[in-house]
């Protein structure tokens, strides 16, 4: 017998609204459907009415976890457009902030993964070790999240000499903890039983579904923006791209844990090599043209495209966030798995649902590009109406009335 289990739009597992309709036969999954964009914010549209400086703060608020990846990608795009070369010190500071963010994001993921499989000790311990990293951000930038460190043409704040020993101390203390986690996960038979061979993604599928970041690397696809299209100071430090071959949830966990160790290595080298000098260069008039900026966010490649018409506002901003690219691979990973593993596979791509919200209006077969406030409101009403129709007769469907 086939049953449809709705996971979302509101579900204790999902911290943001998202709907996965999972069709099961007994405990086995036979089909999955994904509905997104319950909370569209129109960031790309808003950016067109902001200046470049303001748009930087806007893109920082796309996602709360990778809140420095989007600004770096945006800066890269504008700097590519206006042909700006940023000072060396700024490059190193960008690298340090991005890598610290990777550490905190991966630790956050590790904790959530522990929570999803009912291992609350891992959850709490991982978040405890993440806390010093958040405090580091507060010391460096004044904010635990949304650091506002990036600026077109450089960085907004310096990493002061007296902060460097604190960063060194924190990452030195973190390193043995990560080794401890890696050992605890790889040695625990129950953990291996839950993670191994779950949600397998073959290398071929990983390429065909266009996965990026740790998900692709766990399936043996050797891609990393930091190495392939170096920005900031990644080409000046020694580090390696972590890949695994299995493509299952265990491989993703291993990739993320080992990446934390690589990040620690990068930060250590950057702190040693960081030259003195200015933090930013004068930004010239932004010329007419277009620019592309990429950044390896903790979840994968983050892509920004900026088009300029010569004014101080971007004419068009296009963002391709990693979660949006990674989630479709669920179709090949879910089918044949058990219900108990749904959440584990969901969690393994570290989905950031606010990055997946998209909207498009098609009118008589033609894509209508501009939408007014009224259009957006009508769209929202229509969506509620569809939901009511869909859940008519379901238990709890009456709540929508």
């Amino acid at each position, binding site marked *: 017998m086939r049953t*449809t*289990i709705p996971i979302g739009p509101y579900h204790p597992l999902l911290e943001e609204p998202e709907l996965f309709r999972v069709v099961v036969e007994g405990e086995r999954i036979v089909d999955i459907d994904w509905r997104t964009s319950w909370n569209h914010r129109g960031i790309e549209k808003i950016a067109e009415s902001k200046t470049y400086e303001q748009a930087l703060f806007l893109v920082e608020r796309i996602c709360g976890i990778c809140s420095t990846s989007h600004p770096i990608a945006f800066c890269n795009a504008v700097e590519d457009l206006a042909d700006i070369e940023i000072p060396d010190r700024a490059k190193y500071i960008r690298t340090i902030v991005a890598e610290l963010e990777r550490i905190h994001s991966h630790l956050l993921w590790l904790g959530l993964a522990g929570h999803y499989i009912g291992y609350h000790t891992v959850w709490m311990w991982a978040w405890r070790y993440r806390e010093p990293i958040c405090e580091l951000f507060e010391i460096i930038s004044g904010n635990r999240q949304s650091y506002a460190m990036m600026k077109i043409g450089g960085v907004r704040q310096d990493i002061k000499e007296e902060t460097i020993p604190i960063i060194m101390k924190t990452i030195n203390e973190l390193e043995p903890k990560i080794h401890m986690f890696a050992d605890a996960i790889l040695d625990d038979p129950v953990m291996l*039983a839950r993670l191994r061979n779950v949600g397998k993604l073959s290398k071929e599928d990983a390429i065909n579904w266009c996965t990026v970041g740790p998900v692709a690397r766990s399936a043996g696809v050797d891609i990393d923006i930091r190495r392939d299209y170096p920005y900031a100071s990644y080409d000046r430090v020694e580090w390696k791209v972590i890949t695994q071959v299995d493509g299952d949830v265990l491989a993703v966990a291993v990739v993320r844990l080992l990446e934390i160790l690589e990040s620690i290595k990068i930060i250590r080298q950057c702190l040693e090599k960081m030259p003195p000098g200015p933090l930013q260069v004068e930004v010239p008039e932004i010329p007419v043209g277009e620019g592309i900026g990429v950044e390896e966010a903790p979840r994968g490649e983050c892509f920004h495209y900026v088009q300029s018409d010569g004014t101080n506002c971007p004419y068009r901003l296009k963002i391709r966030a990693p979660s949006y690219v990674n989630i479709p691979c669920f179709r090949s990973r879910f089918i044949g798995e058990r219900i108990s593993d749904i959440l584990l596979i969901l969690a393994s791509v570290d989905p950031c649902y606010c990055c997946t919200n998209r909207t498009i209006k098609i009118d008589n077969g033609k894509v209508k590009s501009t939408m007014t406030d009224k259009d957006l409101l009508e769209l929202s009403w229509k969506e509620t109406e569809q939901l009511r129709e869909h859940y008519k007769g379901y238990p*709890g469907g009456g709540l929508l009335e």
Partner: protein
Amino acid sequence: MLFSHGLMDIFYLVIFPGFIFTMTIGLLSTQIDRKISARLQWRVGPPWYQPFADVVKLLGKEIIIPEGSNKISFLLIPFVGFAAVILLSTMIWLANIYPDSSFVGDLIVIIYLLYLPSIALIIGGSASRNPFGALGASREMKLMLAYELPFLLATFTIVVKNGGIISLGGILNYQASNGAMITQGASCIIAFIVALFYIPAKLGEGPFDIAEAETELASGPLIEYSGVTLAIFKLTKSMLLFTVPIFILSLFAKNIWTPWTILWYLLILFFIILIKNTNPRLRIDQALKLLWFPLSGLSLAGIILAAVGL
């Protein structure tokens, strides 16, 4: 005979060792569990009265009955499980206090009563007409099939060992004259280990919280319960946390009507808390495999050992 003391029976059922006593100790045990788990996870943990406050809060909340559910079974079934635990606790304690008063075969009645809280969860989950509830109920059913087999075999070991006594009072009298069951050879130690693993499975704790799996099924069978009915389910669970170890102790470790029981009970509680906090949740098929093959095999070996006199 048990339950033939007139007015005293009401005292036994309601105050000691029935409802009030079991509830108080059970809720305090959940508090110990919550506090130790919290300290293990670098958290502060709730104040000592938190479980009582939770129950009082739930009692004051509105009961929401899902549309299209089977109202009668949905509302009544929590009380069936609850009544079973009260009766269970009373029977076990009275058999310990007055070993001669127990009737032949009350061991079987106790095992039947132990089923009822799980069956209440299954029926409640199915009656709620929620897909998560139904899934949780089906998992609870599989889990029940899984954990009952090794536990029945373990209790059977004791029956074989003491020469066919199937009343709890008889087993206690046997232990009073021959020493605690657990000291009587390898077979009983094996049975005791199997019984220890039965506790978290029975309670849906630790790696066996498969039916309620909050992140997978959003509490499974309990998903639609609220107010008094949810409070009753929570109370049933915390009372089982006290009653099941007490039952196992009276089977294996002599009469529980001594102060030593407090220590033994706390040790078992710490064991439950420890495996709960050091293991991720098992998948239902893995739990089935673990409980059927290694543990049931172990219990079978125990029975064979008991039959040859070890």
